[in-house]
């Protein structure tokens, strides 16, 4: 329901806001307002989740904060709008949020007809299945005839249909809007299978399951789910800021710069490090930011590896390995473009 209201609001907003797409208005608007409005998940452990004190935490949330640091040197100059899968696109299209950092899969349709520009991937994921252990299922190929709980408005819903069609399996979907209700239906036994991104399954099993050991995640990963922050079309400067904040965190890890040893690198002879940290000026100015922007981001938020380990790494309840999200030099896919 809320999605419909939001979509309706977006419809009206699109109708009224005339000529809102000149060059660079987003940055000006945010500076005037004094904070970044960021769309995040309503509750996904490790990615976007309010903790017991009501503070937002998670990998996606940290990227919102990183952008806020790049702009204001303050990770708290950000306001979060929790969005369901269905609400997120109208919210970013209508300008209700400046940045959508909500485990959103990059796809061609979203990049084009939905009107989004995707920053670099912050988490390489894939869709998996979770089943109760007592079913004795060992592989997704054995799931013919199963009832599957899935959240509406996600690529998950489509991959699920594609996978079962490809493998000639029958299934019965139960499609619910809110992720909490989807999880509740699965754990109550309404469905045999819960499907979402593998990271999401790990988070749900760790945080929601009454007894995590009663559930297993099947080995099949049935899709590519590159998750990335997104902005709307029409403001290249704002897009560049978000994009290079993501690259900056990866580049810092490539160079071995962390939030702890950052100041040692201020005297580094490496000209790229000098450019990154603003010792040699120019990079920040090109983005329309202070030259110290990336220094501040690393200082306050840490590099990509730190953000990963803090939120979803092996020491967290999610216990996720770096896998595809390791640096390209370590067999993963995280690769920053040159700071030049």
């Amino acid at each position, binding site marked *: *329901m809320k*999605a*419909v209201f939001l*979509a*309706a609001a*977006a*419809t009206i907003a*699109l*109708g*009224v*806001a*005339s*000529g*809102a*797409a000149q060059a660079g208005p987003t940055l000006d608007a945010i500076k005037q307002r004094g904070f970044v409005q960021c769309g995040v998940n309503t509750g996904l452990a490790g990615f976007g989740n309010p903790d017991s004190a009501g503070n937002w935490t998670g990998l996606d949330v940290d990227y919102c904060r990183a952008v806020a640091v790049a702009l204001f040197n303050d990770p708290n100059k950000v306001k979060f709008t929790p969005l369901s*899968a*269905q609400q997120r*696109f*109208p919210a970013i*299209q209508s300008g209700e949020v400046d940045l959508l950092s909500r485990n959103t899969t990059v796809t061609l*349709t*979203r990049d*084009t*007809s*939905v*009107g989004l520009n995707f920053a670099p991937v912050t988490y390489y994921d894939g869709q998996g299945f979770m089943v109760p252990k007592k*079913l004795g299922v060992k592989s997704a190929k054995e*799931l*013919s*005839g*199963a*009832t599957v709980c899935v959240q*509406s*408005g*996600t690529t998950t*819903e*489509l991959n*699920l*249909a*594609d996978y*079962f*069609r490809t493998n000639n399996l029958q*299934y*019965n*979907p*139960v*499609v*619910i*809007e*809110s992720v909490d*209700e989807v999880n*509740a*239906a699965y754990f*109550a*036994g*309404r469905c*045999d299978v819960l499907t979402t991104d593998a990271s999401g399954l790990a988070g749900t099993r760790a945080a929601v399951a009454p007894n995590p050991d009663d559930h297993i995640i099947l080995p099949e990963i049935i899709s590519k789910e590159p998750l990335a922050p997104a902005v*709307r*079309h*029409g403001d290249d400067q704002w897009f560049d800021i978000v994009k290079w904040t993501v690259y900056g965190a990866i580049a810092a890890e490539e160079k071995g710069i962390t939030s702890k040893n950052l100041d040692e690198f201020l005297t580094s002879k490496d000209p790229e490090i000098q450019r990154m940290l603003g010792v040699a000026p120019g990079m920040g100015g090109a983005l329309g930011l202070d030259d110290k922007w990336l220094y501040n981001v690393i200082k306050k938020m840490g590099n990509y590896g730190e953000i990963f380990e803090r939120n979803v790494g092996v020491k967290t309840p999610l216990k996720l390995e770096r896998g595809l999200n390791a640096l390209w030099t370590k067999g993963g896919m995280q690769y920053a473009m040159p700071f030049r």
Partner: protein
Amino acid sequence: MSSEHRDSAPPRAGFVFSLNDPTVRSLVYQILLIGTIVLIGWFLVYNTLDNLSRRSIATGFGFMGREASFAIGESLIDYTPKDTYGRAFVAGVLNTVKVSVIGIIAATILGTLIGVARLSSNWLLARLAGGYVEIVRNIPPLLQLFIWYAVITESMPPVRQALNPLPGVFVSQRGVRFPVPAADPVWAWVGLALIVGIVLAYVLNRWGRARQAATGKPYPVLLSLLGCVVGLPLLVYLAGGAPTQLDVPELRGFNFVGGMVISPEFFAILTGLSIYTAAFIAEVVRSGILSVNWGQTEASRALGLSSGHTLRLVVLPQALRVIVPPLTSQYLNLTKNSSLALAIGYPDLVSVANTTLNQTGQAVEGVVMIMGTYLAFSLAISGFMNWYNKRIALVER
């Protein structure tokens, strides 16, 4: 010459443009108002399209013909992910119609019973009905849906330990499964015979009544009704070889296979909406009955009518005039509230359209389609109810 001629002509009673003329004035204001509305509408549409194309967001309804690639939990028509968005939308619309029609019937029956019970001279019955109304109508419908959904998914046994109250009937978290006659071409003919029978009964009934009015010969209403509606399909069934094969559900793999199922989602939305709306209908019925002067009841009793006849022939026809207009609003509410289905996973039209607008990113078109469909439903319901209202209205003689 000409001027003379004009002068001598009788003064034209025709049109003089002056704002002092009330007719002209009201006309000008109306034109101005309509013009402004059209202009604002045009501005909004134009600006939306302009903004959408500026952000290179796709527009138009071309996506309706593309493959949907998502599955729908339950559908009245055959639907697979290979079908188009258009067909998915139709499946969603039919699911909304299904829950609305059954819900309206159930809510009307339940609401009437509760409304009458609230007026009962039995103290306990009246208080129970009063309590029902006050509790149910003061809890938001979304919460009630969650409660009903939780009741089934949490309190029913898992599918492998399904309750088996009757042979072939299984009750579990996955809903109620019951056997249905196995597919046979005869059933299509029986269905056709039923429709023919209903039409025939209606025609015969009218003819019979006209004859009774003209000649006084009584017409056996019940017998002809039974013959047409039950007898005719039965005859076709027997002529078709009377197939007795049943499609009985059985546990195979993860779920029961075969038979028919009432899903927990459908059950929750139907029960939730019926019970919620029934509380309002009960009040409508009660106020309608109370609006009929007690003297009417006394008069009909004095004439020797039984209490059943009093209710049916004297009170209800008068009460209906008060009941029908607010009842129409309740029907419209129930239909619109069915959009809450999304929260508990019943694939109604909003659910399907939402998935569609999410996959295609075409929020404007999706919302327009949802609004248009609900508008059409509402207009159809209120059109029918207005017709019915006119039919039962007091005819001044």
